[in-house]
């Protein structure tokens, strides 16, 4: 929270999702491809199978072009984006796990050198030496997964690390082994998804056999992934499960993501079994694309779910998604944002709205944009929204649409209608919604600041039961009364002056 802010139109989280999901798809292909290629070449040597050998060779070119180029660059991309959007979090992670990453780097060096040597020595060295290089590549690539898996899973389920602060307690955390199994299956799925395109260039008479061969890898990978997923879900604590499981999940969008994820896996499994294994002549480019899309949807869905269920944390029970540490809540509340961050203090000359804008960028912008992803401006009610809630005929539907997300537990539509001025009064003076908005924002921020007490009082040596919090998926607001008022003033100011673009009163249209 003491760093400058990089403004991203689409939102930092969305940018990270794009970079990270494309990277993990390619990175898992790099690992799974290494296994399938090494196994294929081994079988080709033992059986004298020229077709398998050609498949391995063609796939190794794909491995070089997709994995060592795009995979390596997008891997660096994750570092770059993480440093830009969540510097505090990545700094905290690095200072805890730098030796884990350093160890992963040693495997990465071997992996890259082996990949380059493997591809360039086809037809130039003995079969035994070439096989050795292929297997070295796979082992190094898989070991890099073994390491990075510990750091990724630590962020969701830090386990005993919360109590001891010890490297290995966080590394071998409750979801480490389930996740490793799941990702091992995913490696095979991603390898098949990519290699199915390489097989299309095989001789026509060999193609069905090779497609069936790859189909078995996809089916096996999907089954292993499913087992890993179920185990992963069973290893999650109740507070995390409450976000996306059960009759009334706290975040409907995550529940929908889970549903999509499992249906995509089922589709990949069934389609691969039918199109690749049972009727391999159906394994053409078009069907390969369909199966690949299903496999990527499963993987992307799982990654989205894994990231989403960490809400409101980046490192569960330790650091929130905006970089605020649980341990710092009381300090920042006491000293205020101006004293805590030089970048907020630098805006002191711009008055309360300027300070409020910087506080928004510091505390809110990691999840909310102004007008794009999770846009904050569109959350401000218009006059039409107010009228709809105030009007008895439309109050119930308007409450459900506009208010229930925050107030379903503490108010009814009638309550809110009773608090608002009458329809006639609003029509007579629509400008009053500016004051109403300001008041609602201030009340919401006060509620978010009170949320901090829940985390301050929580037992931080174990995973905090976030589902018991007032708002389970948002970080608390931290700062003094002045900070709160500054942020409220800024958010209210997003409702532009009368007549200017963005004026919520003007959006009333014919009502004004």
């Amino acid at each position, binding site marked *: 929270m003491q760093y400058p802010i990089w403004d991203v139109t689409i939102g930092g989280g969305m940018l990270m999702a794009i970079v990270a999901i494309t990277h993990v798809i390619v990175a898992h292909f790099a690992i799974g491809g290494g296994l399938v290629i090494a196994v294929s070449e081994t079988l080709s040597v033992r059986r004298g199978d020229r077709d398998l050998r050609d498949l391995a060779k063609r796939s190794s070119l794909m491995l070089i072009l997709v994995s060592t180029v795009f995979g390596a*660059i997008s891997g*660096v991309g994750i570092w770059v984006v993480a440093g830009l959007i969540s510097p505090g979090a990545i700094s905290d992670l690095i200072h805890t796990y730098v030796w884990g990453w350093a160890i992963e780097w040693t495997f990465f060096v071997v992996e890259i050198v082996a990949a380059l040597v493997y591809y360039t020595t086809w037809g130039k060295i003995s079969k035994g030496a070439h096989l*050795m290089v292929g297997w070295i590549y796979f082992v190094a690539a898989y070991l890099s997964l073994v390491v990075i898996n510990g750091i990724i899973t630590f962020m969701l389920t830090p386990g005993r690390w919360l109590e001891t602060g010890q490297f290995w307690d966080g590394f071998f955390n409750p979801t480490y082994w389930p996740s490793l199994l799941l990702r091992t299956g995913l490696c095979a799925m991603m390898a098949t998804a990519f290699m199915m395109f390489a097989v299309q260039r095989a001789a026509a008479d060999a193609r069905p056999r090779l497609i069936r061969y790859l189909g078995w890898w996809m089916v096996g990978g999907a089954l292993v992934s499913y087992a890993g997923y179920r185990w992963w879900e069973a290893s999650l604590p109740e507070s995390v499960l409450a976000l996306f499981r059960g009759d009334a999940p706290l975040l409907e969008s995550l529940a929908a993501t889970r549903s999509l994820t499992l249906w995509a896996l089922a589709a990949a499994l069934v389609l691969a079994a039918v199109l690749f294994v049972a009727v391999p002549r159906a394994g053409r480019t078009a069907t390969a694309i369909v199966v690949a899309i299903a496999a990527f949807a499963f993987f992307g869905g799982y990654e989205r779910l894994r990231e989403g269920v960490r809400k409101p944390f980046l490192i569960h029970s330790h650091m929130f998604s905006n970089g605020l540490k649980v341990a710092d809540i009381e300090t920042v509340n006491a000293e205020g944002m101006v004293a805590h961050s030089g970048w907020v203090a630098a805006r002191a000359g711009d008055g309360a709205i300027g300070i409020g804008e910087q506080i928004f960028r510091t505390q809110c912008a990691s999840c909310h944009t102004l007008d794009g992803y999770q846009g904050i401006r569109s959350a401000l009610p218009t006059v039409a929204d107010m009228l709809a809630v105030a009007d008895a005929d439309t109050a119930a539907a308007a409450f459900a649409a506009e208010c229930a997300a925050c107030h379903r537990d503490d108010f009814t539509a009638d309550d809110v209608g009773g608090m608002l001025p009458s329809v006639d009064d609003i029509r007579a003076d629509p400008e009053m919604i500016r004051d109403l908005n300001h008041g609602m924002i201030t009340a919401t921020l006060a509620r978010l600041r009170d949320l901090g007490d829940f985390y301050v009082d929580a037992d931080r040596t174990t995973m905090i039961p976030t589902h018991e919090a007032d708002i389970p998926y948002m970080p608390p607001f931290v700062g003094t009364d002045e900070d709160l008022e500054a942020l409220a003033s800024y958010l209210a100011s997003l409702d532009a002056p009368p007549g200017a673009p963005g004026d919520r009163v003007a959006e009333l249209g014919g009502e004004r």
Partner: protein
Amino acid sequence: MTPDLVPAVDAAGLPGPVWLFQVLLVFTFFLHLLFVNITLGGSLLAWVAHLRSGGSASDPRGALAARLTAVNGYGISLTITTGVAPLLFIQTLYQQYFYSGTILVGGLWFGLLVLLLVGYYTAYLYKFRGAPAVGRGGGLWIGVSALSFLAIATIHVVVHLVHVQPAQWAAFEADPWVVLADPTFVPRLLHFVLAGLGFAAVIMVWWSVRAVERGADRQLEGAIARFGWTWALWTTVLQVVDGFVLLFVLPQPVLSGLMKGGAVTMVPLTLAILGAVGLLVMMARVSDPLAAKGTVTGTLGAMVLVIGVMTVTRHQIRVLYLAPTTDLGAFTVASQWLNIGLFVLLLVAALATVYLMVKRVLASPATGADAA
């Protein structure tokens, strides 16, 4: 009162002693720089050679462009791979400066990824679709590739200058382009580019010398070697001049700190200057590189050493820039000695694996049905 924009030292502490991270940062950055020089200088030199050849692979300069691009197929990968480690260690030691600096020029820093992708794939396009594969053409691909890597070098210089000058952060936030007005910007960028051109050129000369020993066409290799040697010589001349310019446009406190730092700063700086001048003397005495194998090998070795000591000086300059606001002693150090030992063990094992793998590959040539 001017607000303090430098974030606090990470409370998580350092999982190892400061000196160890400094050694690892400098050493891994040195390894990274060797491949950076090949990638940056190699792609620029390949572009020049391609243009000078008229786009034909049959011209010796066209053959040189093809050779440099083939080397870059490995070079770019290894540049990225070796870049990961210093990126890791600089974030560990100087996170508050590095992250702030990159955020202040966030668009550029993110753009680096796009440029890397473009630079890498256009190099492959030149290799598979340009003169090296079809005999003619592909100048656009290699040109785009070279310019992409040049732009990446420029971004790195920008990030470096921004992150070491926290007193200027407010100005950089208001207008990031003011960094271009920094007096060290141009000489620092030139220092990068000239080093890359010189190093890549010497590598190619060394390659030609070895190729002739193995029976390659002496006329072709001689032409390539002379072209490379000329580039190596003149870029080193310019490098010496640029090095002195860079030294004397450093901010006064930094220059003063460097000069008054005693043996710690003066030994690497003196060695670098003497090494560069020595390189010039060695290179100027050779008119036919193929007939001076020892000097060529010595030049390459000396260049590696000069890059090594310059990496130390570069790090010391960063320390001097940041001295007014930095106290590395403020870190809480809780060394993870078990993990440090594991890292060292696995690094040795990794390097041994690479060595033994390459050794086995080189000892296992095969053709026809015996080959993989």
